[in-house]
């Protein structure tokens, strides 16, 4: 019902991307909120990269960089638009609103949330609002994950404004950008394990009314130079070691799981028959499976190893295939992109690996799994130095056996900054017709 390319539509003046007819899709290019509509199952037209500004490089500002990724376009593989937001706030992650018209992008340092209109014309996003009251309203800082719910956004923060440690929570803002509510991460024993109060990612299974959360570290660590931090034994103790399962409707934690080593991104299987999710732990280099425990609750299991954990390859992002049968894993330190067979989620098996850069972070695949996008930056103070500090957006084709690089945009050479999170967008299918029709109608009024 929601395949963009299956319909031709009239859109608003200024044009809108095609959208689902009356209903949310099950998922969105495999990693976004199940409540986000306008699923792109065909060819994406643009990739928006939330990019950290670098002092002395170009304008030095954090910016939204838009790259044309449609192979039929003249601008294929090229930067077609940049939108600086002014200053450097440690640009990090983004998330669409439920209607996919707006992209919320957070700064881990300044705690600002920039709202970009990417629905009107995805080739030229516009900054329409900046939300700056998160610390004031919640006591949380470091807005990380933006996860759409109907009419509102769940925002998972990383830290707090009292001690800048890892104790934090979830904020809710409505789509107008107004504060609605806040929820602290669990810090007591619930269901056999004690919460650490930390947060990182969140993901929802609607049919189970379950919200899963994971845990990372606070501002004191993520803004510290990585070389300095790893030598600081006390700092290294301050990483999350838990996940939690929440009653989504009540927004109350029901269980805490011990998951050592900082569990990061959470991905539910998109197969409607499945009820499990996976995560990867950054410091212990493991894949964990979260699944029903057979007693009405949930359990977390260590099911696979990523690379050689003793070398701390640092798995930093994962991307699950639409059928729930495969999982991409990027490990930052060794620049490896690995593919795990998830046919048996109890025993994921690495079946492919390739070095895709000197440092790699985010990985996003198209719905059909044929295209895999990779960026390079982890955090400004954690990225490698000198020649190893490659900054790029790269596209690879995946034929099921091998990754083949199509192109790479050098963000250093282009004086853009550090390439971090990516989101896809698509042109309105009937933009010209819509615009012409709208003008005609407007003129006739």
């Amino acid at each position, binding site marked *: *019902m929601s395949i963009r390319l299956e319909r031709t539509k009239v859109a608003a003046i200024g044009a809108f991307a095609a959208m689902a007819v*009356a209903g949310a899709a099950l998922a969105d290019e495999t990693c976004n909120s199940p409540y986000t509509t306008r699923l792109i199952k065909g060819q994406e037209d643009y990739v928006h990269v939330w990019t950290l500004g670098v002092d002395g490089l170009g304008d030095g500002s954090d910016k939204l960089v838009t790259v044309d990724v449609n192979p039929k376009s003249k601008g294929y593989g090229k930067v077609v638009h940049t939108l600086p937001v002014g200053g450097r706030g440690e640009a990090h992650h983004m998330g669409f609103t439920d209607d996919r018209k707006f992209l919320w992008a957070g700064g881990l340092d300044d705690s600002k949330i920039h709202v970009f209109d990417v629905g009107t014309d995805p080739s030229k996003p516009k900054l329409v609002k900046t939300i700056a009251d998160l610390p004031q309203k919640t006591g949380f800082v470091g807005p990380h994950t933006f996860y759409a719910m109907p009419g509102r956004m769940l925002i998972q923060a990383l830290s707090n404004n009292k001690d800048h440690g890892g104790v934090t929570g979830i904020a809710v803002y409505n789509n107008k950008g107004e504060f609605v509510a806040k929820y602290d991460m669990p810090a007591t024993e619930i269901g056999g394990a004690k919460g650490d109060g930390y947060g990182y990612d969140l993901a929802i299974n609607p049919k189970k009314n379950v919200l899963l959360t994971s845990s990372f570290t606070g501002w004191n660590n993520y803004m510290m130079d990585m070389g300095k931090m790893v030598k600081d034994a006390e700092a290294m103790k301050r990483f999350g070691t838990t996940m939690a399962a929440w009653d989504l409707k009540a927004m109350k934690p029901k269980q805490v799981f011990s998951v050592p080593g900082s569990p990061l991104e959470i991905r539910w299987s998109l197969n409607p028959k499945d009820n499990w999710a996976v995560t990867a732990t950054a410091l212990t280099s493991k894949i964990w499976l979260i699944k029903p425990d057979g007693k009405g609750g949930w359990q977390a299991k260590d099911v696979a190893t990523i690379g050689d954990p003793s070398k701390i390859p640092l798995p930093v992002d994962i991307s699950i295939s639409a059928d729930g049968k495969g999982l991409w894993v990027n490990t930052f330190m060794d620049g490896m992109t690995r593919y795990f067979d998830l046919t048996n989620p109890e025993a994921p098996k690495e079946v492919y690996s390739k070095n895709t850069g000197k440092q790699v972070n985010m990985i996003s695949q198209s719905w059909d799994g044929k295209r895999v996008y990779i960026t390079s930056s982890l955090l400004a103070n954690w990225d490698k130095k000198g020649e190893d500090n490659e900054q790029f957006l790269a596209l690879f084709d995946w034929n099921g056996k091998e990754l083949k690089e199509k192109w790479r945009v050098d963000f250093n050479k282009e004086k853009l900054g550090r390439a971090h999170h990516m989101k896809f967008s698509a042109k309105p299918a*009937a933009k010209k017709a819509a615009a012409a029709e709208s003008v005609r109608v407007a003129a006739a009024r």
Partner: protein
Amino acid sequence: MSGWKVAAGLVLVATTLHQAPVFAHRAEHKPVVARPVMDYTPPAAGSYTLHVIQSMPDGRVVDAGGRTRPFAEYTRGRITLLSLIYTYCTEPTGCALAYETQVDLRKRIVADPALHGRAQFVSLSFDPLNDKPETMRLYGGKNARADGPLPWHFLTTSSVKALKPILDGLGQEIEVEVDARGKPTRTISHMLKLFLIDREGRVREIYSTDFLHPEAMLNDIKTLVMEEDGQRH
């Protein structure tokens, strides 16, 4: 925020769908409904808080009898479940699902005397040129009544101009699909949303397709009733 504006496609609703045949009656038009899977026991009513998400917009609407009234008359004073629909929608996960969910929920409310007189349903059309008051009355059929244990109002507006501020305020965008030649079709694209509104006219929950679980929605209504009565678990 500019995105809070309704799509200008709405203009096209006004200009291209007015010649569409009027919906006859739901009895002659039984669209397929695809209900979302619900595999959980919802939390008990009153055991959780429904925060205020947003306020309701003002506006003027037209009831099934053709009378123009302030929209607030239908969104305040009782707990209101508002759906935005158009009468000839056939999307299995769209308006038809909204209607069937409300029918299911209505049975549950009517079966609970403690809820009688505490809630109401409102179905508001976003195609005022096709969905005239008579159309809405026929669409509602026997459910269209302003009295009884659960009033259900089937409303429209006098014009697109009257409708637009309501949709703007709710954050409900719509678009009209066109065919391969660029001609507008009779399909209006919209993200299905139902709004649960407290007696003060504040939105306390928004349901899209995956959230349309009548059992959980009933508990939400009971939660607001208990809040009104000062009862919390």
